[in-house]
């Protein structure tokens, strides 16, 4: 099994979720993150003094999926999350040794 981690633009969350659902993904975990990258931040003025906002709000998706579907999921995800504009984000894949469903103690792909 693989863990697919994606950093995307917040307003894309619903589209991506729907697309993945449609593609057969049954579960995922999301969290609010802030990102720093090429998109860069911006400088603002508050009470006359400047401050730089280096980190931009992003959303992180984590999905554990069966090896077989990794490519398809990546394809669906990048398509749904893309705007073509800088700052669209990244997706990375890491290997999962074990997966357990707490409720049933099921292990491996069955637990997805």
């Amino acid at each position, binding site marked *: 099994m693989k863990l697919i981690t994606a950093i995307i633009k917040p307003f894309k969350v619903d589209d991506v979720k729907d697309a993945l659902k449609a593609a057969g993904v049954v579960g995922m975990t999301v969290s609010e993150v802030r990102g720093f990258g090429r998109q860069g931040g911006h400088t603002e003025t508050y*009470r006359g003094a400047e*401050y730089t906002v280096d980190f931009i709000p992003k959303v992180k998706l984590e999905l554990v999926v069966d090896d077989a579907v990794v490519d398809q999921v990546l394809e669906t995800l990048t398509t749904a999350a893309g705007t073509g504009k800088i700052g669209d984000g990244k997706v990375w894949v890491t290997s999962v040794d074990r997966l357990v469903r707490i409720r049933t103690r099921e292990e491996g792909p069955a637990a997805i």
Partner: protein
Amino acid sequence: MRRALKYIGGGLLGAGLSTLVIGGNAFAEDVDPVTTLSQSTNLLWVVIGAILVIFMQAGFALVETGFTQKKNAAHVMTSNFAIFGLGFVAFLFVGFPLAFGAFDTSAYFGAGGAAMDTEPLLGSGDWAFLYKGWDHLSGAATPALLGFFLYMVAFMDTVATIPTGSMAERWKWNSFVVWGLFAGALYYPLFAAWTWGGGWLASMGRSLDLGNGYVDFAGSGVVHAVGGVAALAGAIVLGPRIGKYGADGKPRAIPGHNLPMALTGCFILLFGWFGFNAASTFAASDIQFATVATNTAIAGAFGAVTAMFYITKRTGKPDPSMQVNGMLAGLVAVTAPCAFISPWAAAVIGLVAAIIVIEAVFFIEKKGIDDPVGAIAVHGIGGTFGVLALGLFANGQYGAGWNLTVEADGETPRAITGLFYGETGQFIAQLIGAVVIWTVILGVAFAFFTIQNKLTKGGIRVTEQMEIEGVDAHEMGVPAYQD
């Protein structure tokens, strides 16, 4: 008798029939029903005013907390809450007698308003410095005396709470507590005694022939500038917050954690300000309260609008925090002159005050003084401008005879008239008042914080770790917000 007339020129000579009746009554033998009713309505107005001013504490609390960081929100909010009681207790036992022991309100409220003790504690005649009297604690306290106390204690609390803004996010709780007691017992009463209490500054019209002496209708100087210089002294002694100035020495912005909260606080301040200014007529029978209320609103509105356009021009965006400072600047500045000026002048004062205060915020920050909420600029600078503005714009239509001043003929009550209306004396009196605030009073505040800093183990500032992790966790024991 002379004291009986102190600070009531307006009521006595400027406000038409019914007040004359009042004026009369204060010395009359038999009191007629109309006079009694008029006096009870006057007292009602002052009590309503006091209620409004007390509510301003919530406004200060919200503005200051909204403009500071989340990790310190409980500390800032609670200090603004606790100051109400701390200053109150000290003022009840010590401050009120010192400042207003000889203040006579019988012209407004009838016999019950007689002064507690007409003899000064310090000084005499036109050169009185402190007063005394404790009737207000006993069963002998009349409703008039207590109503007057309530109004006055509310003004004191405004002074006491102003430094909590400039000193926020790095001030030790215990050190703050000491300030609260000091402010109510001595700091505020000092300048208050010299002016509203009937002291030497109020008497300059008679003693030095300077207009009507120092005049400050509702406290641009007595309350705001006095609070503002304390805010300055405290901020200097504490030093800037960690991270406020970059390695390059340039000031860095530390945005407030909750702007809606700050704006809500400003709305509450605007609301309470009408009690602050309009009820300072001490009389519902003195309909000048309506002029005062409207001039107050005009200055606040022009301050806010000016600030919005000015800061947009200055930094590109309509910074909400500066719009707040702008409205407050207008309100603070018009507080001294509001009863003596024409509506157009209130507009000008609000407009000018907003620009002065915004520039002052920048200037103070550049000078390395860190004031998270702009209290020094708004109250200190804005208040001082208000004191002087009275000396410029007073149109001579209200307050004749104020501070028991008469013209050379010894008959005609002297009108309060500003530089733009051809009188220099009044402006000089105002100038002297402003100078005293920025020398003597600032000195007192600075001495207090410096000495306290010396005497306090580890000083009056929290440790670096406490400041970095937030004072809430360390001093309050509970965070402002829980998820």
